[in-house]
């Protein structure tokens, strides 16, 4: 069985001046490595908070989360080394070139081949000719490709993407979606994306709707129309 993250009866709430606001109650979810998940829902439903809980970066108000790695049960805190993030705003470091941005997580891990690996990944996302360009010299789509390369370069098992196409035009969004899904699939990384885009959400194997404090599955793998999956060049 592949590695997976499981949330059991998770609730999340926070206190304001006068009231306690509950985002969701008794939520259950399993994220398996190698599969894709989309979480949709209205603004303020708690999608970003759910993402933080799944990735182990925040503690739930109640409930339990576990990470099963090679059949060993671990806490979500131990998930840290196996996760990567992709953001709507790209969040590349402006003073670094594309190559250095991608190499960043490898450098942090002390990888001596950081630059070589970064180059390979930039090539995979179609930016071999832009390695020395800074983010300000790249288009939105190109920046997001760099961000995808950066998130995947250290081979995480789980990728969390927060509105990855939110800042892009239609054409770029489609390209990015293709790259994202393909790369995750080829690297056997789970992809959990939060999105308002139904088109993007439709491409995921599992689709959930977070609304009214409940998480409901709306699409399962059996519902997925494989004809919709666009094949791109190997990632």
């Amino acid at each position, binding site marked *: 069985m592949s590695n997976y993250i499981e949330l059991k009866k998770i609730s999340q709430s926070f206190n304001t001046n006068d009231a306690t606001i509950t985002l969701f109650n008794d939520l259950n979810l399993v994220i398996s490595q190698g599969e894709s998940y989309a979480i949709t829902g209205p603004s303020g439903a708690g999608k970003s908070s759910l993402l933080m809980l799944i990735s182990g970066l*925040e503690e739930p108000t109640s409930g339990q989360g576990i990470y099963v790695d090679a059949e060993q049960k671990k806490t979500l805190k131990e998930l840290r080394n196996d*996760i990567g*993030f992709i*953001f709507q705003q790209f969040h590349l470091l402006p003073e670094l070139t594309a190559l250095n941005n991608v190499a*960043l997580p490898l450098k942090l891990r*002390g990888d*001596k081949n950081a630059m070589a690996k970064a180059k390979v990944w930039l090539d995979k996302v179609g930016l071999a000719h832009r390695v020395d360009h800074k983010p300000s010299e790249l288009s939105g789509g190109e920046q997001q490709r760099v961000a995808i390369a950066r998130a995947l370069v*250290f081979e995480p098992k789980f990728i969390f993407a927060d509105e990855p196409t939110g800042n892009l035009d239609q054409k770029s969004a489609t390209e990015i979606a293709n790259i994202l899904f393909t790369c995750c699939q080829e690297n056997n990384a789970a992809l959990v994306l939060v999105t308002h885009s139904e088109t993007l959400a439709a491409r995921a194997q599992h689709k959930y709707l977070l609304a009214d404090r409940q998480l409901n599955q709306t699409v399962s793998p059996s519902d997925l129309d494989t004809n919709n999956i666009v094949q791109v060049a190997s990632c």
Partner: protein
Amino acid sequence: MLSNNLKLAWHFYKQEYQSSHQRLLRWIQGILLLFIITLSQSSISIQEYLDHNLQSLLGADAVLSQKAELTPSQHTEVIEITDDMVITQHIKTTITHNGQWQQAKLKAVGEHYPLQGELLTSTALKEKGTPTFAAPKNGHIWLDARILASLSLNIGDHLQLANQQFLVSRILQHEPDRLMEGHTVDMRAMINLHDMKALNFSPDLIHYRYLLAATPAQVNNLIEWQENNLPAAEIRHKNGNHPLALFWQRTENFMGLASIILFFMAAIAVNQLTQVHMKKDQYFSAICMSLGASNSTGIQVSFFKWFIGLLLLLPVVLLLSACSHWLIVNWLQETFADMQWQWHAKSALVSISAVVTIFAVFHAPVWLSLRNNSVANLFADKSKGLSHWLSKASSIIVFSAVTITYSDNALLTMMMVAATLFTIILMILISWSTLTLGEKFTQNFSGLVPFSLFMMKQRLVSKSTQILGIGLCAFLLLFTLMLLKDLGATMSSYQRQHDGNVMISQATKPQMQFIETWANEQKIAVRQAKPYMYAKLIEINQQSLSKFSDKPSDSLATFSRAIRLHWSEQVPQNNKVIDGQWWQPNSENWQQVSIEEEVMTDLGLAIGDWLTFFIGQEETKFQITASHVFTPGAGSITFWVQMPPAALAHIQAPHYNMASIELNSQQWPLLANLWQKFPSLRMISLKEMTDLFDRMLAMITKVISGFSLMIILLAGVVILASINALESKEKKKNSIIMSFGFTRSTCLKLNIIEWLVTASITATGAILGTYFTGLLIYQSQFSLNYQPDFVWLIATLATILCLVTGLGIYASRSNLKSSVKQLMAET
């Protein structure tokens, strides 16, 4: 519209009051305003006091002093040149009473004293002095309050002075000509001229001072006459050559330098903050414009906010300045007894206007950047190219304006600017090479250090700016502290490690013979005894001293009076020859001298130079053939000028001795007998010498410590400002790092490593910059011999850097309060 914008500005001022960039700006403005207003108020107080009281302070238009009485013809000639003359005689003596003794400067005056100003005396200690127009009567003595207290005397008591009884009849409160004698803390006593004659002191021990009333033209004639007729005599006059002139010149130099340094540091801090202000005000202005407001709304709100901030700061600053000014005046009253605290409103207004103008220039780039602002900035970040350079330009403009305005010494200013530029270039080079090479050489290693170097290298420009700011602060602080330490050390160089606990600084031959016999009888050890004669330096290489140099110089100031000229066949055991050659035993060439190395350096003398001394009543020339330094371990008595004993045959002058004796606690009362027999014997205990030195050092320490405190405060602000400027970037960087799966502790470790690297680069730059500045400035501007103590430099620097690193890490802690969530869309 204007009033609306004003209300808006007030609203947003209150909103932003607690934000870090506003608080830091207030600190910078507050510190500078406080410094400038206090400085200008104190400066005016001193100037006014000097202008109004010069008459009273100096007691004469000019004073001619020497160790011999004017001959009748000389007396007549001086009277012809000047308008009026009053004779006074001085001798250092010891007054005894009931087994206690006290050294004092005894002054004898005649019926026409004082010439100018007021002599104030009283009959009770707490009584205010009243003007006194007559000299003490025969058999009467007037003492200053300190002697009364020291000898437990009261008005009406009698005391002994050289076997004569004197009645203590009045307390000396103020002598108008005291300051013309030079800065001295000697205790004072006054008797009638007739009594001085009756005391029958040896004539060569008495110092004659002639107080003269003269116009400036007459003073110039007098100076010319003195150079031709009495080369060994000393003239002090109101037109610059009085003790206060030297003190004031040095003070103004130092204050000018202080102002430049503080403004430069403020410029660094404001430059960092301007980026933050610019960004926030541009954002606000763009939002307003997207809601239909015009460009001018943003500019006006920004200006009014800034102005309101300054306006509300003023009352606090004025109050603190008034208190500081009052404290300074209080402290100066030790020297200028009648100085009163007074607030000079006009000067305060001028200072405030000048500083506010400077702050406006600092902030101008923010307002200029708003002129070209538009709603488009909300879509794309159009910073900041031109604005960035504008803020650098405004700093340079302010720095130049302050440099020109506040500097009274162009050479010193240029040197300081050169030293600062050198340090800037040095730090840029060190930053670039450390980060580039560091990153290159650690490429193949794993760990957080190589990563930190990699990140710092990638952000070279922003990191360099931060390093530069902090480095310059460290450099300025280190230089100031080094100057303080070395000033103290220079003073203490005159205080040698003492051998024996009583120093006899002047004993005639018969007195010395008596002392040696007496010491032998009383089993008192005479540690050292060295002979000397008094010699007044009048020319250096045929150039008179006044023409030789006009820069402040301790050595030249000392040479304005007669110094002690020692003779010795061999090199004294506590000296070492470091240049030239000591004379051979029995050398016939008697016109040789060895000079103390510090004096050589201070005056720019070299082996082979000729010095002309006035000894006895004749001029004698000596050639410098050697220079020596003091070496501890073989006695403390050492001399600036030494000659071969062969010279004695060619010079007619009284011989004296310096000696050092050791008394145990039971033997101290024996000194009273010695003084009763020889009241003109100059003896001082080690404790008294130490007290005198401690008082002077305390005064200098207070001034420089106050200034160092300002630098430390501003340095702290610079560090906080540089962290504040980079805060948003740092937070984002930390969030991104955490998104790669790393924890906050990793971010903290990276932060610590970055600060350590920053601190190391600033350390190297600061220490080299300080060394270079010392070389450049010490000798030429402060007459200090520069001998860097690298151990002290490094130790002090290590302390500064621990504090800088600690403060940097502590202040950066808010950068760690970031999270991945903050990068997400909906947050």
